[in-house]
């Protein structure tokens, strides 16, 4: 089938991989896609909490790999979205329980039933990153507009290029326009210039993201329109091939600069 496996990774931890996975999964499912989100962060699982599915987990990824259940038994369907499924990570095991070959066959089976498979990778460049990359057709790199996160993203893009995975595309998360304006944060243009890969999302800092995560309900599902929720929807549309313009971040000069940069590429 023409299913796509999209791995979401970052290098640095805490930049918003899981938030993006949950919100993107929901946004894509709302657009009629059959979506499986795979929590590949074995031992530190969070995706189930963000999706509000923690209490419905019976089996997990490691159970599937070690043949204690069939793949279909481990997939948890979302409460509201009938096309969104979660393959949870094991919490009581660690990364050594999963190997690249395991991820390959699990994803090959998922490809039969789903249009889009989102893999929420672990942070770092070790095994948890490697097995999440193995089945990827495409990669989404998440970073924040700060120097350490951008450095780590650069490192990871280098590894992805060496493995010939890709194309890798970029989401810049937690952008605070006021801080950029005051010169206290890297601007979007700075990050895009350093990393030199296609930008597919800019998510503004928004406290509703935190509230949604605590409530276990993806922001993209919510009816009151937050700026971050809108940004996640835009990323979903761009992933599906739509041409969606970037809305201004209250910094018009800046926006023009980075759009020009993006279109040059």
């Amino acid at each position, binding site marked *: 089938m023409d299913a796509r496996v999209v791995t979401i990774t970052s290098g640095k931890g805490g930049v918003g991989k899981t938030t993006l996975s949950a919100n993107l999964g929901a946004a894509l499912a709302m657009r009629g896609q059959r979506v499986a989100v795979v929590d590949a962060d074995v031992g530190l699982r969070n995706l189930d909490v963000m999706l509000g599915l923690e209490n419905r987990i019976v089996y997990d990824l490691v159970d599937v790999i070690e043949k204690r259940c069939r793949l279909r038994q481990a997939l948890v369907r979302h409460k509201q979205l009938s096309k969104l499924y979660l393959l949870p990570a094991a919490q009581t095991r660690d990364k050594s329980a999963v190997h690249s070959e395991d991820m390959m066959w699990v994803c090959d089976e998922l490809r039969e039933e789903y249009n889009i498979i989102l893999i929420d990778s672990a942070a770092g460049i070790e095994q948890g990153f490697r097995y999440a990359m193995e089945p990827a057709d495409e990669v989404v790199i998440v970073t924040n507009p700060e120097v350490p996160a951008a450095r780590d993203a650069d490192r990871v893009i*280098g590894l992805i290029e060496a493995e010939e995975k890709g194309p890798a595309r970029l989401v810049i998360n937690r952008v605070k326009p006021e801080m950029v304006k005051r010169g206290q944060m890297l601007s979007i243009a700075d990050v895009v210039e350093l990393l030199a890969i296609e930008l597919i999302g800019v998510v503004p800092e928004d406290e509703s993201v935190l509230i949604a995560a605590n409530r276990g309900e993806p922001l993209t599902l919510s009816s009151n329109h937050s700026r971050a929720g809108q940004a996640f929807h835009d990323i979903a549309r761009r992933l599906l091939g739509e041409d969606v313009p970037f809305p201004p971040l209250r910094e018009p000069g800046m926006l023009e600069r980075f759009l020009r940069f993006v279109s040059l590429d």
Partner: protein
Amino acid sequence: MNSERIIIKGIRQGLLVTLREGEWSGLMSALQAHLGENPDFFRGGRMAIDVSDRELMQAQIEEVRSMVARHQVELWALLSEDATTQSEARRAGLVTELPWTRGPQHPSEEAKEPPGRSVVVRRTLRSGQSLRHPGHVVVIGDVNPGAEVVAGGSIVVWGRLRGLVHAGALGDEEAVICALELAPTQLRIAGHISRSPEERPSKPLPEKASICDGSIVAVPWPGE
């Protein structure tokens, strides 16, 4: 002469050392002399050694490995046409074939060059990536923070230079470093080290750095 019995060239995965004619112990001391004379160039590098059709036993392989390790060089591959050497190398946990199959431009542009000559790298070097070559290095792309280029000769970056570069790492004080935007984390030429000035010009200009009266000086490039 050392330089004729031992050929060192930069490849994608680090340095490739080719041992030519000669008896083993002589070659080993020649290699050791090389390592000892140019510690800055070799330190922290990864080395593959091509021993052609020599038959080596575990003990000799370990001898090379520990010898280069004393100079902080990691031996990761041992190439040979000899079947015994190959199996002994694998037993020692070494790679016995260079993975040329990767990279769209394989065999990589770095590898095809004759030893000691220039290499042209047509990609951006990202954080964590390292390029070592005994000759001159031209990078068409950026050198990002966290990446490093170490060259025996000069370094030209047709792009932004923000990582660490070391030109003349084999001791050549005449080596220069040029970049369209010269803003490296650190600049080294032969035995000299300098940092970029703290304040960055708002509009970057191409610059050339070289040794002038014993310290590294950057001037607009091309100059008059």
